[in-house]
């Protein structure tokens, strides 16, 4: 296997806040000890519920926020130690598409301005007479009409805005794209369009994606490698998307997706218990309180992420087969 494009080693981020105005300081590990390789030209999917740290991981991957511990290496360079100028250089090669296309586009910028902004930031602005052609190329690429260039974000639908977000991320021809729930606020019909577009770019440009989602069904369709997170930690990595999940939490996630077939109705076994507070994690497995397989061992000792017999890695005392 060739060297991964992006390597995370023991990556962590702790947030500190106060409970109330005068309360004691308390901290939570939004991302804890994440070790993950993202291969070039492939899609790595990260799934988990709200609050599992997947968006924080997305931001750490691009160093949009600083890590509290561990490192991120991009194409052999440890990006955590780069000076701002060098960081800016390398950012050309790594870009982000945000979840909410409604708030990630400046309402006062025309779409053409939005698409030219990356060039301006990087000091790569094409000469004035070539700008329109550059914008047209980007709009063509994501399947938007060229007339959109003079529109403003509020004149576009959610799906159109997300296409603009993707075009903007692709403007500088990056190798690595982080997509933070790019379709969560869109209709399923538009979601499918966007995914088809992303599949094409992966194949045409050899892009690597870190694709964040809460929909395991979608991730299993779209991704080459599936990472399941729970309360800041990786609980399972499946190196084949069709691999049957072995962690009880991954199973529960899979059981939550509905097939478009009334003959395949599921009985959703509700997960017992509540998600523990991220400020006061239990000593053992964080999922133990909700897990049907939990034993005394699970409550006492946190399972480590180890090689799984089914390929990939798993952190569970009682993996399912």
């Amino acid at each position, binding site marked *: 296997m060739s060297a991964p494009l992006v390597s995370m080693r023991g990556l962590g981020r702790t947030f500190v806040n106060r409970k109330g105005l005068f309360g004691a300081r308390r901290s939570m590990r939004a991302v804890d000890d994440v070790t993950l390789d993202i291969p070039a030209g492939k899609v790595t999917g990260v799934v988990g519920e709200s609050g599992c740290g997947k968006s924080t991981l997305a931001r750490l991957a691009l160093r949009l926020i600083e890590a509290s511990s561990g490192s991120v290496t991009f194409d052999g360079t440890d990006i955590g130690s780069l000076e701002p100028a060098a960081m800016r250089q390398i950012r050309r090669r790594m870009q982000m598409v945000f979840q909410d296309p409604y708030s990630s586009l400046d309402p006062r910028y025309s779409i053409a301005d939005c698409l030219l902004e990356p060039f301006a930031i990087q000091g790569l602005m094409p000469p004035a007479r070539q700008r329109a052609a550059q914008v047209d190329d980007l709009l063509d690429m994501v399947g938007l009409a060229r007339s959109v260039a003079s529109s403003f974000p509020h004149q576009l639908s959610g799906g159109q805005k997300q296409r603009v977000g993707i075009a903007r991320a692709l403007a500088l021809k990056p190798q690595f794209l982080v997509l933070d729930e790019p379709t969560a606020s869109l209709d399923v019909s538009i979601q499918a369009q966007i995914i088809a577009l992303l599949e094409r770019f992966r194949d045409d440009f050899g892009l690597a994606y870190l694709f964040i989602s809460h929909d395991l*069904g*979608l991730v299993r369709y779209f991704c080459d490698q599936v990472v399941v997170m729970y309360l800041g930690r990786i609980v399972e990595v499946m190196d084949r998307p069709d691999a049957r999940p072995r962690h009880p939490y991954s199973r529960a996630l899979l059981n939550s997706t509905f097939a478009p077939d009334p003959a395949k109705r599921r009985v959703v076994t*509700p997960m017992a218990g509540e998600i523990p507070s991220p400020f006061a994690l239990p000593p053992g497995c964080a999922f133990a309180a909700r897990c049907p397989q939990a034993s005394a061992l699970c409550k006492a000792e946190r399972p480590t992420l180890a090689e799984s017999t089914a390929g990939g890695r798993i952190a569970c005392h009682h993996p399912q087969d």
Partner: protein
Amino acid sequence: MALLDLSDVTVSIGALMPLDRIAFSIEAGEIVGVVGESGSGKSLTAMAVMGLLPLIGGRITSGAVRFADVELNRLPERDYRALRGRRIALISQNPMTSLDPIRRVGQQIDQVSMIHLGLGAQQARLRSVDMMRQLRIPEADVVHGNYPHHLSGGMKQRIVIAMALAADPELIVADEPTTALDVTIQAQIIQIMVEMVRRKNVALMLITHDMGVVAQACDRVVVLYAGRVAETGSVERIFAAPRHPYTKSLIGCIPVEGLAPGGLKGIDGVVPGVANYPTGCRFHPRCSLAQDRCKIEAPLLRTFDEGAAACHLAGDPP
């Protein structure tokens, strides 16, 4: 006789006509999914049933909405108020905005049975806590005293469902009740909601854009496109043999187990805005099967042995 019957309901807002001859019915205790993309007219249909169109300057210009023995489109607002919350309840998409942020959630449920069923405060509280337990809210008597900001999105949506059920309604209109939630929470809420309406024999009009949710929860399906009914039918029929190409496309938007890469298609283009509805079949610009006839002549909603479809290519009814 159906519990709810919409016959050729046309809705106008000013010079625009966002709903055109919507026709379907819901039997007592039945779960009917109303599906379509954003802009199909799902929420407007809900508003037409709830009598909320005046809020956005809209009105029913022809057709009739009948609920049991009441003709809703002729009902004065005064009488509508007695009906809403009591016999027809609404669950809206966003639980964050449908709860009063400065009142305890329990009181908000209590209020429904106090107003509509005339219960005293004590009885109302007992009833609310019992309802919350049935909705599997842990420590219901504690949660009863919490404020909305104490609760997670899924828990808030359960509170909203408890409010909807509090006065024993005959019909609940749920407008994308799980769209704002995580998939795990969505799965639980759908499960709980279906269990409850079945147990209490309440009819449910479930509005969603997700064919996965429809397949999981519904008995029958109404597919809307650009303000018209594209197809209706039993859930089995709709998924096994959709008559309308739009229905088929919507089903194809859900990634299924084992779908090969590139298999997820989506539907090209977007739903046209109400001011730009195309001539003929409104789906024809996005339809891969469209013929010349589809561009000129609007297909009528034709009744088949089971269900109905508005497509020139749906074959002839028997």
